[in-house]
């Protein structure tokens, strides 16, 4: 493939563009407050890239991913702070435990469809959030939990600038992993079962196995981001595990554009920064946020990135762009055929 076409693919060109944005970021961030927002946006983006694999590609909704995020955060925090484990080992064990849990509950939960799946994942997230809030001897309860800083190989990772680079590199790595997965046989299997589960099974795709696999992968992305968030902030509260946080994450994915990895990153960045910008509206902050969400989804039902890409590209897909990136408005995850 000629270099020009290669650069037009999400895997090479898109990734290079993202890396460039991360690299020049510090030139545009005037003080540590802006660094903080950028770090939180990148952490949300890591969750959304994983969640987008589940919602955008496999077509399965989850309204409980803050639960995995929270388990990653509290698991790492408790093992490292209360039990004195090395922070990286604590995070590895917490993430592995989340992967096992997601794999275990994935099978019965992903048998459900549409709104029933939405309710089950929502219920699962609420159970975790209530347990975290109530087990105050372990988690600090509603008051929150103080977390030790991330130390490894004798260095303590502290300060917004250092964290910016760590989280930025991890975001690029997460996007790279996701893009590779999407272009792999597994990714094609996911898109096939999104189109029609029965047809995919006829073609030899083990639908249940693939759905559980991508559920576990997306849970791992969330747990890693959760663990990092705990070490970065030095403090976690149950609000990070709450139903509203789950909804925020799904909103970021849909807002940016389903089945578009860069859409998920963009959605996370915009919706993390937006509430900060909206503080100028003071009392009207919530009203404006709600109105922005509604009008964006009404006028751009496919999400920001796919809609803008269609405008720029004149609605035609360019050569070399994989079909899934060209066809982002795939039917809704919770879509059920209705007469």
């Amino acid at each position, binding site marked *: 493939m000629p270099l020009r076409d290669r650069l037009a693919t999400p895997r090479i060109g898109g990734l290079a563009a993202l890396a460039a944005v991360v690299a020049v970021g510090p030139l545009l961030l005037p003080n540590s407050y802006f660094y903080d927002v950028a770090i939180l946006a990148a952490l949300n983006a890591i969750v959304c890239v994983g969640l987008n694999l589940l*919602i955008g590609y496999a077509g399965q909704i989850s309204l409980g991913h803050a639960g995995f995020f929270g388990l990653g955060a509290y698991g790492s925090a408790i093992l490292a702070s209360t039990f004195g484990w090395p922070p990286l080992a604590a995070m590895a064990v917490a993430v592995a435990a989340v992967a096992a849990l997601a794999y275990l509950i994935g099978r019965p939960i992903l*048998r459900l469809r549409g709104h*029933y799946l939405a309710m089950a994942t929502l219920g699962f997230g609420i159970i975790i959030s209530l347990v975290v809030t109530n087990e105050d001897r372990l988690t600090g309860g509603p008051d929150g939990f103080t977390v030790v800083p991330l130390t490894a190989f004798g260095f303590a990772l502290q300060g917004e600038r250092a964290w910016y680079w760590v989280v930025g590199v991890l975001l690029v790595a997460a996007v790279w992993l996701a893009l590779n997965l999407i272009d792999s046989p597994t990714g094609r299997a996911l898109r096939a079962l999104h189109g029609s589960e029965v047809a995919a099974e006829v073609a030899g795709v083990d639908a249940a196995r693939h759905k559980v696999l991508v559920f576990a992968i997306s849970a791992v992305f969330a747990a890693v981001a959760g663990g990092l968030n705990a070490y970065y902030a030095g403090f976690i509260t149950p609000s990070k595990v709450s139903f509203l946080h789950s909804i925020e994450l799904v909103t970021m994915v849909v807002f940016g554009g389903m089945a578009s990895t860069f859409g998920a990153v963009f959605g996370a960045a915009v919706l993390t920064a937006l509430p900060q910008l909206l503080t100028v509206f003071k009392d009207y902050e*919530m009203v404006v*946020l709600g109105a922005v969400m509604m009008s964006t989804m009404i006028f751009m*039902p496919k999400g920001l990135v796919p809609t803008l890409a269609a405008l720029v590209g004149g609605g035609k897909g360019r050569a070399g762009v994989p079909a899934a990136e060209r066809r982002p408005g795939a039917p809704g*995850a919770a*879509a*059920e055929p*209705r007469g």
Partner: protein
Amino acid sequence: MSAELAQYLATGLTVGAVYALVALGFSIVYNASGVINFAQGEFVMIGGMSAVSIAASGLPLAAAIPLAVAATTLAGLALEKLAVEPARGAPVVTLIIITIGASIFLRGLATIVWDKKLHALPPFTGDRPIEFLGATVVPQSLWVIGATAVIVVALWWFFGRTRRGKAMLATSHNRLAAALVGINVRHVLALAFALAAALGALAGILTAPITLTSYDIGVMLGLKGFAAAILGGLGSGPGAVAGGLLLGVLESLSAGYVSSAYKDVIAFVILLAVLFVRPGGLAGVAAAERV
């Protein structure tokens, strides 16, 4: 029956009746549009809050209640016309995000129109507790349960006996076929949102004297109503009522016999268990998937 159990059942049925009303709203909108309206809980909030402020302006409750229901119904119609109707044909997840945006918008609006404080509505008929089978019940509980029973019967009559109700049922079964026999399906959609808003408002008004009301009361009530609708089987009227009452009683029993901190955990664990065994809810038939 022990007095303790009677007490838990009375509490559970009161809470459950409110869940049932919210769940009915979810089911009616779902049947008409295929949308889960995440702003359903906000109707409960608007109903309660506007009744409180109208009553505070000096009007008697008997006038404040219908006015509050009417105001909420208008909000429901506005939501349908301004946010749901323009997005017709959008993916379901997009519609879910639109209704979530609407609920944030309405909650924000409530903090501006009213405030962030807790408000109470005076009980309809005094607050002298009544002894019943060993349980102590406030009169307002009887209002909640009685009014819910009346509403359920009225809805049963509406959907089973009137042309308009039957038209709504027909549209939920097959939109195209309903349009072909001359049913105005857009009208049905508007009516569904109006009905759901009115039911939510009634739930909010009935429960405001017991649980108080505030701008953010709709979040949890909306979730519980959704859970009740799913538990019973989405789109089924009797399922929504049964699901609501069951969820209320389960919560009350677990709060009484196990732990009040874990009552919601137990309710959601049972909900998940039911879904694992019956993926279409209690009254649900597993929907055939179209290939």
